[in-house]
């Protein structure tokens, strides 16, 4: 399977934010709440990852509730691709 690296996902995340005139901080510990990255932005990012890899990523909502930082987003999507 054509998996995206953590760095590639980070680039896509930066694009999602840039489209909203927001910036992605370099620090993985940055809080999503502070940078204005919302749950539908996460959906958009996941769908962009799907577009790149050609594989659907299906997941339940409870996992999303634990996501609070930029690092959490990247970890979640890296792990999800491996499932």
């Amino acid at each position, binding site marked *: 399977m054509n998996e995206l690296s953590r760095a590639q996902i980070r680039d896509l995340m930066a694009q999602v934010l840039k489209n909203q005139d927001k910036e992605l901080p370099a620090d993985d510990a940055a809080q999503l709440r502070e940078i204005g990255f919302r*749950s539908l932005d996460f*959906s958009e990012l*996941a769908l962009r990852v799907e577009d790149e890899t050609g594989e659907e990523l*299906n*997941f*339940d*909502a*409870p996992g999303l*509730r634990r996501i609070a930082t930029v690092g959490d987003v990247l970890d979640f999507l890296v792990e999800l691709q491996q499932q």
Partner: protein
Amino acid sequence: MSDLADTQLVPPSSVVLVSGGSRGLGLAIVTALLDEGVRVAAFARTVTPELEKLAAEHPDRVHVGSVDVTDLRAAQGFVREVEQRLGPIDGIVNNAAIGQDSLHVHTATDDIARIIETNLTAPLQLTRLVVRRMLGKGLRGRIVNITSICAQRGFPGLVAYSATKGGMDAATRSLARELGGRMLVNAVAPGFFASEMSAVLGPTQLDQIVRRTPTGHLTEPVEVVPVVRMLLREHTNINGQVIVVDGAASI
């Protein structure tokens, strides 16, 4: 042919089939009906020790079985067993359902199909099966569909689930018309329970619902049971209705 209404009253149900009767609301319904002296047939994918215990306590009035509601042949077999052991079924509670907790765009297509099959297709098939037998025997009976506040109000993460519950609410109305007073067909739509299916909403969302609920608490199965019992057992003229039990959270 005339489709004039039938004016004879529908008697209280005496043999009630409960799908998904092994835990939660289903188990509470089975328990309450037994307390009332009704004969009860309950099935679920897995028969829990709690349901086994009820069956052991009331061997003459309970029939339980491990049946997946989506397995129509197994459901048919179960209905035949029930009729032999307890007598003709004259009440159904369509309670078995599976939950959902995923955004629509991230829900696997197979999961959407499974939710619809379990929560909409299966209860329609089961109802058809039992109503055919009731009509064929000239019996009058009662049908109670357990739906959800999701059928009337929007909640994220519950798109397919809500669609199935809305479908059952709609079917309730049409079936009540179609059965022309020979059967009373109603739905009970609980708000969110603190347990089980409401793992669908996060603690923050549940807190928000509680704050907006005039009665100040989430619905408990024990608060829904009397309504189901009434619809199955009391003489009322309630037919084709969806009764919401949610402490006015949705009002």
